[in-house]
């Protein structure tokens, strides 16, 4: 399938929508900065934090460059435990495999905990088209499912809605009290409704934060306990996991368990860190679906393979000044923020070039990333290739050509800076208008009478 070409300015156009509601935009920015600050408190609370980041990065580098061995070991151990392991080459195969398992067990309704992989594969619409009811059980995911939306953040999927939005949604969908938009009350309403879903579902699906090669465990971290509820009542458990989530052993897991939540939400741990090794005695054997969907190609990309180190904590988006001020829906890929920009480009350069300009190159993302993915450097590298992809903005290309002509020639440059102050005389409405692309989003600067070079030379005299 050939995707529609999106030029490199796609994100900034979409962000205009987000910025229309300034009250909300300011709240969004402040909320994520608060999460970033909580992360800092956690990091500063451990003397070994930077050592952990370095170890985590090295473990991941080792693991993803030996992943074929670890995957084989994981699958062998999981099968020894009595699990049924499936391998999916792409999203389509993944959806077919899951549907096949559900059909064999005559499943009508499946509860599931949060999984970005199932978003990646667009599993829910596929299963629903085949007559299976899918109920999201993470509160944020449930909210956006009822609203018919997609997540705007990988850890806080409903962050784009406020308590009034959720209150009105629950009045309509769950019959909550009119006008009662108190978050505690609304959470309780959702709890009662989801409790009924857990008790009546035929199957439960979880993602997996980690797969442990040495033991065959699938490890799932949640605060709500919804992954555990999803697998404690229904008689069938399917775990879906991307290839890169496999790590060697518990010693490695200790490093990541300590960092995941501290980095992502600023908590010392998630409430539940659950290890699923086999089905409970009264249930059918557990199924594990390992999904490639591009990963075996991405590992070969010389500049971008380290994106596979990501543990999906969300800290890069929490800290990103562009994400905080533009929201998840301004990005064309389903994962927003710095990691989403890179994963989107690995997926499809034509469809997702619009995101690479959503970066100030401040590199805050790679400063906080617990596994040291070089996120900002990678975004810079993608930008160098836009022309090759045919997604460079023509206006910006022209400006760059002009700038290299000016900066490459001392005579033209000096003449330009000496005369620039004449531009100050042009009346503001003529300068700050649509004809001047520079004035979009910023006011034209005032040029000094004396250029900087001249100023320094005069001072040196």
């Amino acid at each position, binding site marked *: 399938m050939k995707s529609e070409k999106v030029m490199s300015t796609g994100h900034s156009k979409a962000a205009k929508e987000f910025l229309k509601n300034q009250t909300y935009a300011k709240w969004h920015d402040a909320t994520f900065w608060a999460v970033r600050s909580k992360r800092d408190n956690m990091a500063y609370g451990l003397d070994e934090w930077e050592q952990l980041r370095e170890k985590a990065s090295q473990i991941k580098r080792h693991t993803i460059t030996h992943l074929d061995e670890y995957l084989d070991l994981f699958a062998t151990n999981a099968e020894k435990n009595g699990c049924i392991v499936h391998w999916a080459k792409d999203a389509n*195969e993944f959806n077919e495999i899951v549907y096949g398992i559900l059909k064999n067990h005559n499943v009508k309704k499946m509860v599931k905990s949060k999984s970005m992989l199932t978003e990646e594969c667009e599993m829910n619409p596929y299963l629903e088209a085949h007559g299976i009811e899918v109920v999201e059980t993470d509160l944020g995911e449930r909210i956006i499912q009822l609203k018919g939306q997609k997540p705007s953040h990988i850890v806080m999927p409903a962050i784009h809605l406020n308590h009034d939005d959720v209150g009105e949604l629950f009045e309509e969908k769950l019959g909550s009290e009119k006008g009662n938009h108190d978050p505690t009350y609304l959470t309780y309403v959702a709890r009662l409704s989801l409790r009924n879903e857990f008790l009546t579902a035929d199957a439960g699906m979880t993602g997996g934060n980690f797969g442990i090669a040495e033991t065959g465990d699938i490890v799932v971290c949640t605060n709500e306990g919804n992954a555990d509820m999803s697998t404690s009542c229904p008689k069938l458990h399917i775990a879906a996991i991307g290839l890169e989530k496999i790590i060697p052993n518990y010693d490695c897991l*200790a490093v990541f368990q300590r960092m995941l939540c501290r980095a992502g939400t600023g908590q010392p741990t998630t409430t539940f*860190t659950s290890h699923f090794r086999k089905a409970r005695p009264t249930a059918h054997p557990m199924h594990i679906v390992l999904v490639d969907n591009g990963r075996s190609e991405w590992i070969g990309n010389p500049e971008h393979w380290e994106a596979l180190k990501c543990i999906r904590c969300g800290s890069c988006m929490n800290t990103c000044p562009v994400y905080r001020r533009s929201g998840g829906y301004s990005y064309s890929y389903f994962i927003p923020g710095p990691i989403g920009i890179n994963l989107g480009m690995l997926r499809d350069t034509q469809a997702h070039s619009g995101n690479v300009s959503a970066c100030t190159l401040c590199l805050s993302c790679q400063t906080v990333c617990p596994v040291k993915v070089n996120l900002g450097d990678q975004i810079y590298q993608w930008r160098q290739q836009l022309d090759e992809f045919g997604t460079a903005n023509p206006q910006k290309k022209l400006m760059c050509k002009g700038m290299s002509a000016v900066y490459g020639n001392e005579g033209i440059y000096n003449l330009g800076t000496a005369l620039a102050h004449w531009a100050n005389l042009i009346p503001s409405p003529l300068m700050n208008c649509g004809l001047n692309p520079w004035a979009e989003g910023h006011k034209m600067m005032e040029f000094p009478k004396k250029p900087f070079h001249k100023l320094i030379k005069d001072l040196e005299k």
Partner: protein
Amino acid sequence: MSNKEDILKRYRANVREMYDMPDLSDIAAITYGDPLVQFIKMTESVGGHVIEVKEGQDINTLVREMYPDAKEIASNLPEVTIATRNPDTVGRARDLNGTDVGIIRGMFGVAENACVWIPQTMKEKAVMFISENLVILLPKSQIVNNMHEAYKRIEFDETYDGYGTFISGPSKTADIAQVLVMGAQAARSATILLLPE
């Protein structure tokens, strides 16, 4: 060629440079002068409660005092005599719904983050999550400093060897407007009863 072989072969062929596994034995992980004090502090900070059980004090009386209105109490622990339901003998997991208090056993606690290791030791593990209030019995001598130490000693049960979890405080969420609410989908309160030697 099977999907597995196909995927592994393609992956292997595309790997460019191989990296070594780092040495993890030199991680200078945090330790505490008194891990128990830190464990109690962290449990309270994640929204849990801690009660130190005195020598000779009866757990059943204590739980009754804590939850005077509780009608359904679920446990398979031999020392719990007030249980009205047993997760080993219920017909279906869902029959545990409506449990006011679930009482389970923790093997050890972790000082840095209030995690308690709880392997499945009952037929239906639903009791750990479905109960409105969770009570965890934990010997107070069994506290480790950090997760590195914890992962060196976790063990699954011999009979129920398919599942184990770390629990740190009650179920919680901040998914509605970032307001923290205790009691999302699992237990709304979590109390650690620290048992004497």
